Structures are given as C-alpha cells and as structure tokens.
C-alpha cells in the first residue's frame, strides 16, 4: 500500500545543496558589503538559516533545530538589539572599505588555501558518491543510523562530553554576570 506513495530518499539533493550553499554565500557577501548594519544582520540571518538547512541535509536534525533556535532566533535578535540601541549613524557615513584591505585579502587567500589543501589531502575520508545506504529509506531512519538523532546527541552531551559542556556553560555564566554587572547602575 505504501509503494504508491514513497518516492525514494534524498529528493533532489544536488539542487538543494547548491541552492542552500548559494544562499549562504550570497548572504555572507551581503553581510560585509551592506552599508546599513541592520541589512547586514538580516543577511546574516539568511546565511544562518541556510546553514541550518545544510545541517539537515547532513542528517543532523538536532543541530539544525538548535541552530535555528540559538543562532537565528537568539543571537541575531541580540545583535539587532545592540545595533538599534547604539547610535550607529556615524558609522554608516564612513568609507565603505577601510584602508587595510590588502591584509584582509591576504588573510582570505590563506584561509582559502587551507580549505583547498584540506579537501584535497583528506579526499579519502569523503566517499565519492552518496551514502552507503539504500535508496528509498526514510531520511529519519538514516539520521538515526548516523547518530544525528536527538537521543544520541543527548547521550554524548551528558555522557562522554559532560566536562566540555559544563565548562562551556560556566563560560556563558561568567559572560552573563559580567554583562549584568557592567550595566547595572547600582548594586
């Protein structure tokens, strides 16, 4: 009965990959080229959401969900708060590209060289075509098999990597306390 319905697994994967990565790259370019800070922030949101989509394509649904909640929904809101509360009219009148752009170009080229060498040298780690799983499987099952499932993520977070998790949360606590103390007028 189900055969009339299931259309097979990963639907139009190359299309979605190119679309999402293209969106992410365009968003990134818009972030650095927009004069208006709010426009940059909106472009960054587009980038973050595309990256969430890419995570989904890598069968990591939990990371995708958390990316949307934490990054796009939390951190970007805070970015926008800061942009709007601080007087940035002066900044938008500055020159668009600052004077140290040659150094920036060198840094970008170095980074690109690092990526390319990592991809070339580590080619053996990435299988050439698709997943070693059968066509027609449910993407959720694939995610489960690849340990992207939420249960697994929880087990690793609170099992193997508890220490790292706690250190990270302590760091965030220190940051929050610092922010509160710096902005309170009287203790």
């Amino acid at each position: 009965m189900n055969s009339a319905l299931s259309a097979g697994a990963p639907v139009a994967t190359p299309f979605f990959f190119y679309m999402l990565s293209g969106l992410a790259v365009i968003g990134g370019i818009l972030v650095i080229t927009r004069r208006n800070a709010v426009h940059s922030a909106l472009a960054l949101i587009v980038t973050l959401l595309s990256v969430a989509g890419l995570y989904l394509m890598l069968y990591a649904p939990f990371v995708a969900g958390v990316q949307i909640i934490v990054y796009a929904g939390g951190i970007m809101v805070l970015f926008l708060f800061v942009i709007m509360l601080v007087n940035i009219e002066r900044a938008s009148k500055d020159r668009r590209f600052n004077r140290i752009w040659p150094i920036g170009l060198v840094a970008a080229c170095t980074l690109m060289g690092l990526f390319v060498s990592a991809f070339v040298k580590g080619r053996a780690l990435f299988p050439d075509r698709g997943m070693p799983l059968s066509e027609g499987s449910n993407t959720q099952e694939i995610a489960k098999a690849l340990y992207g499932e939420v249960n697994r993520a929880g087990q690793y977070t609170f099992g193997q990597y508890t220490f790292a998790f706690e250190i990270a949360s302590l760091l965030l606590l220190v940051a929050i306390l610092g922010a509160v103390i710096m902005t309170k007028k009287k203790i």
Partner: protein
Amino acid sequence: MPNFIMSYLGSTLTPGQAGNQFWALIYVLIIFAGVSVAVIAMNWIERKALAHFQIRLGPMRVGPHGLLQPFADALKLMLKEDIIPSEADQFVFWVAPLIGLLAAFTVYTVIPFGPSQAVSDMNIGILFMLGVSSLGVLGIVVAGWASNSHYPLIGALRSSAQMVSYEVAMGLAVVSAIVMTSLNSTGTGTLSMIGIVQAQQQQGVWFIFKFFPLGFIAFGIFAIAMVAETNRAPFDMAEAESELTAGYHTEYSGLRWSLFMLAEYAAMIAVSSIAVTLWLGGWMRPFPNLLHAPAWDFIFSLFPGLTFGALAAIALLGTVRMPSHSFFKIQRVGLAVFAGLLGLIALLLLVIAVAGRSADSSLAARFNDGIGYVYWFVLKVSVFMYLFIWYRATWPRYRFDQLMKIGWKVMLPISLGVLVVTAIVGVIF
C-alpha cells in the same frame, strides 16, 4: 485516479514520512486555507465575545450578527492608502511583516491534527516549532526599526525583550513535558509531535494530569508564557493604545498592518496547538481509557455532528429572533442560509459517524476517525482561543518592568523546579 486517492487515504504515514510531495502540497494548501479561515473567525469571535463581556452587542450590521464583518475589515484594509514614512528604510519596511508571517505559518508544518494528519512529522518537531516561533521576534524588531521613529522602536524592542524572556520559561516547560514522554518501557522519549501524543496515548494519561500536580504546573507555566509570547493581554503593554510607546506597528497602514494581525493570530493558534499537543492529548478524545467501550467510541464520534448541529440551531434561533422589519429581511435570509449550511454539514458528519460505526476499515470508518481527530484537536485549541479573549476582557495590563520581573523571577525558577522534580519523580516511579 480513484485508486490513487484510495491508496493515499489508506496510508498511516504523514506525507513527509512517505516522501510524497504532492500530498504534502495538498496538506499545506489545506492548512493555509484553514488557518486563514481560523484567523477570520477569530477576528469575529474576538469582537463579539469582547462585546458580550462588555454588555454590548458588537458588530451586528455587516451580515447577520456581524458575520461578514471580518470580510468588511479585510476589504477596508486592502483599500486603504499604503503609507510608507519617507525616512523609513523601504526594503526592510516591506520585509518585516513577511518575516513575522513566515515564522507564524511555517510552524504549521509540524502540527499534528491526527496520527497521520500532519504535513511532516519531523524527528525534532517540537524543537522546530520553538525555533521557528522565535524567528517571529525578528519580524517585530525589524518592523520597529524600519519605521524610523523613536516610539515604535522602543515599543518593538520592548515587545521582543518580552517575547525572548518568556521563551525561556516556555522552553523549560516544554522540556518537562518531553521528559514525561520518556517514561515508557524503552526509556526513550521523542521530540516529534505525533510521538508526544502517542506517548500520552501509550501511558494512558494526558500529561496535564500526569504526576499531578507536576504536569498541571508545567501546563500552567506554558499557558501563561504563551500569552506573554504572543503579546496579548495582560502582557500587551508594548502595543497598548494608552501608553506613550505606541507599538511596533504604528507606522504600518492598510494591508501591511493586517499582515501583522494575521501573524499575531496565527502565532496564537500555533502556541495553543503546542499546549494542546503536549499536555492535553492532542487529537485524542476525552477519557480514552476510562470510557473504552465501542459504544463510548460511537457516542464520542457523534460529537462533531452534534456540535455543528448545535451551531445550526443557534443560527436558526437568531433567524427566528430577528426583528420582522423590512430592513432586516436580507439579514434574516442570510442567517437562514448560514444555518442551513451548518445543518447540512452536521447531517453529513452524523451520517459519516453512523456509517463508520459498523465496519472497521471501511472508507467511512477512516473518514470518521480522521474527522474525529481533527475535531477534538480544533475543539481544544478553540478553548484556548476563548481563554485568550477572556483574559483580554477581564484583566488590566501589567507594567513592563513587572512583566519582565514575572518572566525572569517567577516563571523561570518555577519551570526549572518543575523540570527537576518531574525528572526525579519520573525516575523513581
């Protein structure tokens, strides 16, 4: 073609699970139409219910008992002049309502109206819902900024600060409900919306009653946080008319403003659906375990038809009670037609209920089940909608700093405590 439809109706998977895009699209269209109708109905109900709370009648002229009033409002808003402040940022001004609307409507892809009646049952269903509703905050912030005026900006920042604060308490309350899903034999919980309702079905108790009063307190926290999340009374300081900060949608006029209202009502329905799914048993009919016999199944399956029958009867009563003046002739006729429509729907539902009683896997039985699921879900969500209106009519509004104090100093500790106690109790029992 009929085989195609029959093979679909016979499936027990959601279109997302089955990977079928065509049916997913059909579902999306149905949901979109349904939510739009729901928002329109909500507009009418709000005005009428608020009016009746305030001992007045509300809209009575446009259509019988004001039933066509929302359409008149929509028409008026569409015909209004589209004013954009000259200093405003044009692109951002245009895109801000869209962000809010997208966030509000995308949530509906995971809302389960039945065990296989959802567009897509994601593994991370509830996480997705929380994430996408937090994207709605961005729409508000950006709308306030795009107006390029001091008061809307302050109002928008306050609105979004309020929403972000109550999201924390909401999230923790949701987590304590998720903890309850894992109290089964295998010890694994689930984040998928359909899985949560099935866990309630399996454990034989709605999570609001589980480990009483823990489930109830978690539900209470969520119920209060969701009112604050949608900027409704008593937490609507940021958009109150009599305050200095006039709210983020001040500079918007006509259709753009109605998009904000659409997003607000859609968000209200979405968070109520979360509450219904997590604590009130989603699509399950009341007393699924206590009253288990097929006779009770049949009685409860009559409810959709009876509800529409009751609505038809009320409309008929309205028709009879209309003054017999020539001015009211058209309203009388209109209301009679409406009553007739409702009666026809009631009749159809009753026929399906009766026909579906006999065989277990016939078409009528499947229709019957599906209608039952959707009906109970929508009924529970409607109760929450009515509560939203009731709160607005009854209570004054909190001052903004009191609101934030409650969010951080009261809601957060209680929800943390409930989470911890639920986990402990869940392990012990």
